[in-house]
């Protein structure tokens, strides 16, 4: 795989430098490898995201207005070390504590936890909310084993909005937990991406097969299936999300009248054309079931290099989450005006 890079071992540092350039002064580089908003209001409950690099425009691209205040960036596909998490924590803290919000991966959890212990030693209160939206990665009774995938975009959007008015770290934590609980995703892998340092594929998948529920690094999914058409695959994937809401005792089933945000994500190489063809079928499926699509996101926001594949995420809004969704936001990864399209 041809990649336009320099020293393969310096990819993560150089991409973060480029990201700072893209922010054009709105966000700055802090410590070893963190990105932090230039203007964070005093007395604000801070929101920190983060994770491995190589999945751009997330996670660091979600630093922005009414979004995350900062991001701790790891090396390619690797969790940020604790001192990077700690540096980012210090940089975003404005006296009211810091909420860590990131995808549920073992390395990330260990390193963010140590970062929070370092913060604690400095008297900075930290709470953690894990994002675990991938319904294919474990049953609803074992949510602690689920991975965080594309659902992190709507979750961070909602938590970022909530952080603007949150009066305490506890109240922001509660809203973020609700956003996670109401967000479910399912993905499908068509072909692997290539690891920048080695050029090797991140996993193996036969040419005529697709990995239903396969993780963005090739983690085991639900099934390997023969290649399908968009119209056959889309309902199959959406059914997994519906079944999950139904089976999970912690949430109500998705039912007619529910208002949702629907997100079609490309893992990188899957084209906008394919995303739109799937969206067309998905809207049919969702409206037939009486769901009200309050807003739509389409695009390659949670990627794994040139991996081919797609994921669908559904976030159910309620009277608390809907006004948060309708707040405007701006970042490198995702921006929107006030309200929703079509409203």
């Amino acid at each position, binding site marked *: 795989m041809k990649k336009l890079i320099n020293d393969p071992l310096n990819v993560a540092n150089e991409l973060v430098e480029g990201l700072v350039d893209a922010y054009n002064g709105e966000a700055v580089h802090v410590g070893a490898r963190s990105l932090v908003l230039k203007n964070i209001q005093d007395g604000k409950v801070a929101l920190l995201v983060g994770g491995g690099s190589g999945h751009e425009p997330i996670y660091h691209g979600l630093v922005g207005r009414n979004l995350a205040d900062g991001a701790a960036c*790891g*090396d390619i596909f*690797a*969790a*940020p*070390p*604790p*001192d990077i998490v700690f540096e980012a924590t210090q940089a975003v803290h404005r006296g009211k504590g810091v909420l860590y919000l990131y995808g549920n991966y*073992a*390395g990330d959890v*260990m*390193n963010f*936890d*140590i970062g929070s212990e370092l913060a604690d030693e400095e008297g900075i209160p930290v709470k953690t909310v894990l994002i675990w939206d991938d319904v294919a990665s474990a049953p609803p009774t074992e949510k602690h084993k689920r991975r965080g995938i594309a659902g992190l975009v709507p979750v961070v959007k909602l938590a970022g909005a909530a952080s603007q008015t949150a009066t305490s770290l506890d109240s922001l934590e509660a809203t973020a937990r609700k956003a996670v609980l109401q967000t479910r995703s399912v993905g499908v892998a068509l072909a692997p991406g290539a690891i920048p340092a080695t050029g090797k594929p991140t996993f193996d998948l036969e040419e005529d097969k697709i990995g239903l529920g396969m993780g963005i690094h090739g983690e*085991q999914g639900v099934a390997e299936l023969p290649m399908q058409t968009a119209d056959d695959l889309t309902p199959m994937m959406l059914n997994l999300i519906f079944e999950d809401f139904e089976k999970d005792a912690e949430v109500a089933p998705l039912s007619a009248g529910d208002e949702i945000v629907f997100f079609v994500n490309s893992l990188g190489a899957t084209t906008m054309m394919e995303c739109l063809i799937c969206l067309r079928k998905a809207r049919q499926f969702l409206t037939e079931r009486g769901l009200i699509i309050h807003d739509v996101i389409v695009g390659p926001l949670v990627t794994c290099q040139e991996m081919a594949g797609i994921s669908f995420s559904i976030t159910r809004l309620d009277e608390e989450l809907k006004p948060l969704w309708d707040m405007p936001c701006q970042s490198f990864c995702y921006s929107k005006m006030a309200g929703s399209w079509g409203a």
Partner: protein
Amino acid sequence: MPKTALDAPQVISMLQEVCQAIIAAEPLLTDADRALGDGDHGLGMQRGMTAALEKLGALDPESTGIDKAFSTVGMAMMSTMGGASGALFGTLFRNGGKAIAGNSHFGTAELAELLKVGLEGVMSRGGAKPGDKTMIDALHPAAEKALQEAAAGSPFAEAINAVAAAGEAGRDASENLIATMGRAKTLGEKSLGKPDAGACSVAIILRTMAEFSAK
């Protein structure tokens, strides 16, 4: 002549030898991890121990506590390795070091306390237990042995030699375990017949400590 207990300058020298031993073992650790994981353990440990060596060299041996020497290694590993192994080996040295703060010498009792608390830290951080085919399968028997030696009041050089042997036996026994954690878990029974790479690192660390103490 076998040492009875180590003072802070000796602890720093011992840890420098540990760093060098792991750096030299990179090909062995890489091979072990390539068989079961994603093959990055050797390079990660090499990177962590290279940073630790530099940090140890910058310490003032006369004014550094023995706890600080261990936690310096832990912080260097955490900062430079990233991922799960940086967090776990970092926790082993950092928590273990903290547990012996205030002690002026590193003897059998301190060895037992360091391994006991380090092991607890690794287990609570990573969620693995003995038998999961991880670094714990070398660390757990080593810590148990150290506690026995401390209870028996064994001389330090003898005790650490027995602890290293227990770690090596644990590493060897990990060949017969099926991986249930990390990336190797998808291999299932295919993981049989090979030792865990993290357990190999633990065995090398303990053996190097024992060799230093026997000199």
